[in-house]
């Protein structure tokens, strides 16, 4: 390799095409060394599109909103309750805990040390959850951060924050919005964003 080439590539070290090439090189080496299967990456990505994603969480919330006995069981033993709906737990959800937001208490989940997140119910964490500025600010200035997410709590609402650091993964049952009486679980589930299930959004009907 000539010096010119070296300079060329050195220059690229902090570009997306460099990261992409390096990642491709990494998988390529894993394949050469038989450390990975040819379909492993695709199956992993597909897994989070079909098996573990926010569609699970939304289904759980809709059931909790419409079935008080289920909600009681969900709050008592989250892993057992989601199994009733055919949702499997697993990695980053071996020990799930659901908490319920109401008109007077708003729950927020964060992980200031890394990015702990309830994968079986919500899939993989969105970028905002992993962003250092979010993690720095949410615990000390939750109302200001909520505003940046477009959420204003009514005056007097108390905030309870869950900062994951051991082995429990937290999941928020948001408050059910007015005007949804008699809705089907499917229709309710469509209202529920990933953000709402970690307390960075409130569910509304427009």
């Amino acid at each position: 390799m000539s010096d010119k080439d070296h300079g060329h590539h050195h220059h690229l070290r902090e570009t997306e095409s460099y990261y992409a090439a390096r990642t491709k090189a990494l998988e390529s080496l894993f394949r050469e060394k038989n450390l990975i299967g040819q379909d492993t990456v695709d199956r992993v990505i597909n897994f989070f599109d079909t098996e573990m994603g926010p569609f699970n969480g939304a289904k759980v919330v809709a059931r909790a909103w419409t079935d008080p006995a289920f909600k009681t069981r969900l709050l008592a033993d989250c892993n057992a309750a989601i199994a009733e709906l055919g949702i499997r737990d697993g990695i980053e959800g071996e020990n799930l805990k659901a908490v319920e937001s109401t008109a007077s208490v708003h729950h927020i989940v964060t992980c200031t040390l890394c990015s702990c997140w309830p994968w079986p119910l919500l899939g993989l964490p969105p970028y905002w959850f992993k962003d250092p500025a979010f993690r720095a600010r949410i615990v000390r200035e939750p109302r200001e951060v909520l505003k940046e997410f477009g959420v204003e709590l009514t005056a007097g609402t108390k905030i309870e924050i869950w900062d994951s650091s051991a082995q429990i993964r937290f999941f928020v049952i948001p408050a059910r919005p007015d005007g949804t009486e008699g809705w089907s679980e499917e229709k309710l589930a469509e209202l529920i964003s990933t953000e709402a299930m970690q307390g960075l959004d409130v569910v509304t009907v427009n």
Partner: protein
Amino acid sequence: MKLQQFLGGLENVGPVSTEKKVFVEEWEKQLFGVHMCMMGTGIWAWPHLRVKAEGMNPLDYFKYRYYIKWLGGMTAYLVERNYINEAELEELTEYYLDNPDAPLPEKGNPAVTDQVVDYMFTGDNPYRDVALNPEFKVGQLVRVLDPASAVHTRLIGYLRNKVGVVEEVYPKAILYTDSVPTDSISTPQPIYRVKFMTRDIWPERPDTDDALFSEVFETYLEAA
């Protein structure tokens, strides 16, 4: 002080990102897939990634996007442990830079895929079946200790020296990790859900009834 161990409560860091995508570039999916393969086949576990993250220059930690940091941590680890070497990785990187559409080798171990999927459905349950003799009980006031800086910790920086109340003693002992150095959470031990009032943590903030919950390993606590 490693800033990454004290991230919560850091002031003046500017606006938050509200980006809702998980992966913001396509290559991040591939990287994540390789990472899950490493997890599922036992090449590494979260604590190895965290050691790298906590050992970073704190300015770089803020500067680089999430999966860019993973790329650095993963490749450094794989080179250190001799799974790959830097020269072959660099050579192939240059090859794919110059030939971005070149295919991956049609090789590999087909058994890995099922192993990884099984792993994702199984996870790593942290409970260990050892005698649990918790030192603290529900309702007790506890103070978070302020131990020396560690290679890796699960002690949330802003909770050091703060007092909270035990709300729950978890039912079984938890092993955090036995494969990386930590500040004494490498043996199975009780964990507690401790409730803190945020006014006690940040008294300079407007007063509220807000609370903050953390699950704390027993070794990080003393009676208050």
